[in-house]
């Protein structure tokens, strides 16, 4: 199963984030811009980290921001934010974060195959640094093997 589409609107490059909350909000803004979620989803992703800690920093330099399925999710979607300056999330081993991937899924069951695809991509430990260095959305799509188009199904794109 391929990744959800990653349109240009879901990618933000060299974002200036002061802290992890700003970095997660940037991933949320990109999800909302692509039509995958409402604006409120960003706060849900921050809530998860406040509740459970920085476990979303799943590999060195990489945060996989996500929240539970809920009314804020309009369509399955991912977003990618690269940070102009690495930001600490509070993870003992994988800080600082250079790349934030936002993930929105509609059901807890339906997402496993597309997330498995993310696992395939990031099992190459050079990919995070390559994404962090990318200067154009097309480069990031190519690194992830994500499709560009496809209506996210959520309306405003």
């Amino acid at each position: 199963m391929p990744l959800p589409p990653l349109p240009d609107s879901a990618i933000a490059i060299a974002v200036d984030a002061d802290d992890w909350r700003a970095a997660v909000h940037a991933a949320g803004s990109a999800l909302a811009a692509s039509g995958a979620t409402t604006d409120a989803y960003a706060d849900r992703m921050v809530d998860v980290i406040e509740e459970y800690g920085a476990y979303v920093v799943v590999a060195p330099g990489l945060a996989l921001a996500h929240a539970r399925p809920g009314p804020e999710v309009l369509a399955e979607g991912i977003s990618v934010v690269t940070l102009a300056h690495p930001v600490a999330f509070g993870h003992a081993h994988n800080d600082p974060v250079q790349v934030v991937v936002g993930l929105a899924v509609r059901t807890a069951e339906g997402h496993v195959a597309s997330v498995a695809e993310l696992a395939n991509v990031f099992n190459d430990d050079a990919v995070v640094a390559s994404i962090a260095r990318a200067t154009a959305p097309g480069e990031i799509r190519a690194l992830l093997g994500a499709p560009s188009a496809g209506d996210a199904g959520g309306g405003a794109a």
Partner: protein
Amino acid sequence: MRIVTVCGVGIGTSAILKTNAERALDRLMLEADVTASDVDGVAAAARDAQVVLTSPELVDRVRAATAGLHAEIVVVQNYFDVDEIASVLESSIG
């Protein structure tokens, strides 16, 4: 054999850990049923499991939730490091 992978909300990170745990098991030539769970559901999910894989941030909650169960709680630092996952699985069940 049953293995449970745990993250805070049961989507995303636990699914990645499940995928890479299955990959690690293949490498070790071991067979197991791997299930993804959230912290709230881990007590039920791990009732008949041998191993629970989770992250350093969640391990205290997972230990508290699974107190009294037989499952061994194993911490994984890098969810994308199949070598690390294979090595912790090998030392707990291999």
